[in-house]
């Protein structure tokens, strides 16, 4: 009897749950919110953003609640997985909307959209902290924040993402870069970056990154650079190891940083050699030309300096973003595009 009663109750529960699931599924598919998400997942990003922009906040909130409820479904694994996929799409949709809003200086929208993405990510992280999507999304947001020089946010965001049981080398790189950028802005640009900017912390993060991933050349270049900024002789040794086997942008940066050290120490001939080597490696990049022109101007070679300026500033059809220094100064921003592509692949239906 008890068994039959239990079965009956169980059957009722199953029916109720099924009914709810069946009712919930068409709701998710039919709402404008999920339509926007689906469009984004299919690569129709502009349409998706336009559709999202047309939704009221209460419509978004209802859609989010429905997705989270579906994700929590323990009995319907398929539904839960569908919800998780939709949530990943929603995260990317809100992230795109958030940073588009920041570019337009629409602060309220930026805050609202990123908070939505963050609430979803926290939910996914509570299920699997090391999920590739969660990890990559955090790296993407850090890259974008570093590109916009929003270091205070980047710093706190990175702390939130930090895992005491061990971080990925990419996150360690981002953590170190935030400190390094903060130091540079505070010490060389006489401005308040909103973070401490501790080169010792940066060093710790870069060294940890290299322990986990010894072939991560970017961490090696950054470690060399910050050690030279601290006037630690090991810095030049590390930069000197960035040779022909490294990609050209890393070689360029290493020569540029070496030149900077030589110049500081008054070794003008070596500085000129290093800057010239950088110019030869990537003639379209501007920073080494500027360094070389400044060095020559300071030693009285005005015509040469003017010629350097004419060469670099007068060059036609050079893309704006061809200088590794521009990207270096923005931490991990240059990795943002790669992270974005990975995430977009992960959300494809």
């Amino acid at each position, binding site marked *: 009897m008890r068994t039959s009663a239990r079965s009956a109750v169980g059957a009722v529960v199953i029916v109720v749950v099924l009914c709810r699931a069946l009712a919930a599924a068409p709701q998710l598919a039919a709402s404008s919110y999920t339509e926007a998400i689906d469009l984004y997942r299919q690569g129709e990003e502009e349409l998706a953003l336009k559709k999202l922009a047309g939704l009221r906040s209460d419509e978004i909130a209802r859609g989010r609640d429905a997705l989270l409820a579906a994700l929590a479904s323990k009995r319907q694994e398929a539904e839960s997985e569908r919800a998780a996929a939709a949530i990943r799409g929603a995260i990317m949709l809100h992230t795109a909307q958030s940073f588009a809003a920041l570019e337009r200086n629409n602060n309220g929208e930026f805050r609202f959209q990123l908070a939505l993405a963050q609430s979803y990510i926290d939910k996914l992280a509570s299920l699997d902290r090391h999920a590739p999507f969660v990890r990559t999304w955090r790296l993407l947001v850090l890259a974008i924040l570093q590109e916009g020089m929003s270091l205070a946010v980047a710093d706190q965001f990175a702390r939130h993402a930090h895992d005491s049981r061990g971080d990925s080398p990419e996150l360690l790189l981002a953590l170190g870069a935030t400190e390094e950028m903060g130091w540079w802005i505070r010490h060389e*640009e006489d401005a308040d970056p909103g973070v401490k900017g501790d080169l010792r912390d940066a060093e710790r993060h870069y060294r940890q990154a290299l322990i986990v991933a010894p072939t991560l050349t970017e961490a090696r270049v950054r470690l060399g650079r910050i050690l030279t900024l601290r006037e630690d002789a090991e810095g030049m040794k590390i930069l000197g190891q960035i040779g022909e086997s490294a990609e050209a942008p890393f070689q360029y940066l290493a020569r540029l940083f070496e030149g900077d050290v030589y110049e500081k120490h008054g070794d003008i001939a070596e500085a000129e050699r290093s800057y010239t080597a950088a110019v030869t490696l990537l003639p379209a990049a501007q920073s080494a030309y500027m360094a070389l022109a*400044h060095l020559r101007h300071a030693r009285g070679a005005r015509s040469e300096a003017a010629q350097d300026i004419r060469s670099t500033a007068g060059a036609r059809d050079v893309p704006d973003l061809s200088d590794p220094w521009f990207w270096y100064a923005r931490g991990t921003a240059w990795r943002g595009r790669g992270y974005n592509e990975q995430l977009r692949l992960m959300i494809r239906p």
Partner: protein
Amino acid sequence: MTRLHQACAAAIVVVGAALPPTAQQRFRSGTVGVRVDVLVARGQELVRGLKATDFELRDEGVLQNVSEIEVEQIPLNLILAVDTSGSVAGERMRSLVQAGQSLLNGLRAGDRVALLSFSTRVRLLAPLTPSRQQIDGAFTKLTAQGATSLRDAAFAALALRETDPGRTLVLIFSDGTDTASWLRAADVIDAAKRTDSVVYAVALAERRPLVNISGGRIIVQRDTTTVQEAGKFLEHLTAETGGRVLFANSNRDIRAAFTETLAEFRERYVLSYTPAGVSPTGWHRLDVKLKVTSGKVTARRGYFAE
């Protein structure tokens, strides 16, 4: 003295056959001297009609025998460096182009202009040229996007000035802080000390959000005016060369600020002297005062003799 003559910095300008006869007469004939651009103002008004004898100039504390060169006799090199970063797009760019074109109307025969733009890169759109048409054409092609390499552009403008008898006015327009330069502020200030260019700047306020995280939530705390940070560098740079920063409150003010800069530059006095009783090398601190007349004197803080 010969060593000084042979190896002086750009602040010490060769003034010989290239100068018009009137100016040469005011110099000791065929000599090399230091030239100092001086502005005198009383309150908001410029003080005009002064003679070399009204000034007291000390080089490293040593009183010098100064002459005055008539400004009208010296051709002008105007090196314009304009910010074309993303924040300048739209109405601001239109105002900037109009201001630039209006500035060209104020130039005289013999004057030369160069146009540099700066955003993520510094671009030389036109080298020093007497052709207004060339500069006008370059202005119409300006587009705004990208970051702000203000310090690199300021240095490029200073470095483009080569040894010629003209007076060089570097005019920098910017609406934000530097976000892309390789050179540090100190590098550019150092370069400014090694030239005789006078740097003026027109800075326009730009408001940006200050974002932060509180309780795990991203919040926008308030707006902050970034021009103050850019202003620090520009004020230092202009003061070092005897120029100044004009702060524009709106796009409409850019044109007036440009025009005022050129008019003010033309009202400056150019003093010259052959250094006496001072070291032939190194940094020379300059002090320029009025002997009797009241007024605020603005001049470069010194020069390098190398």
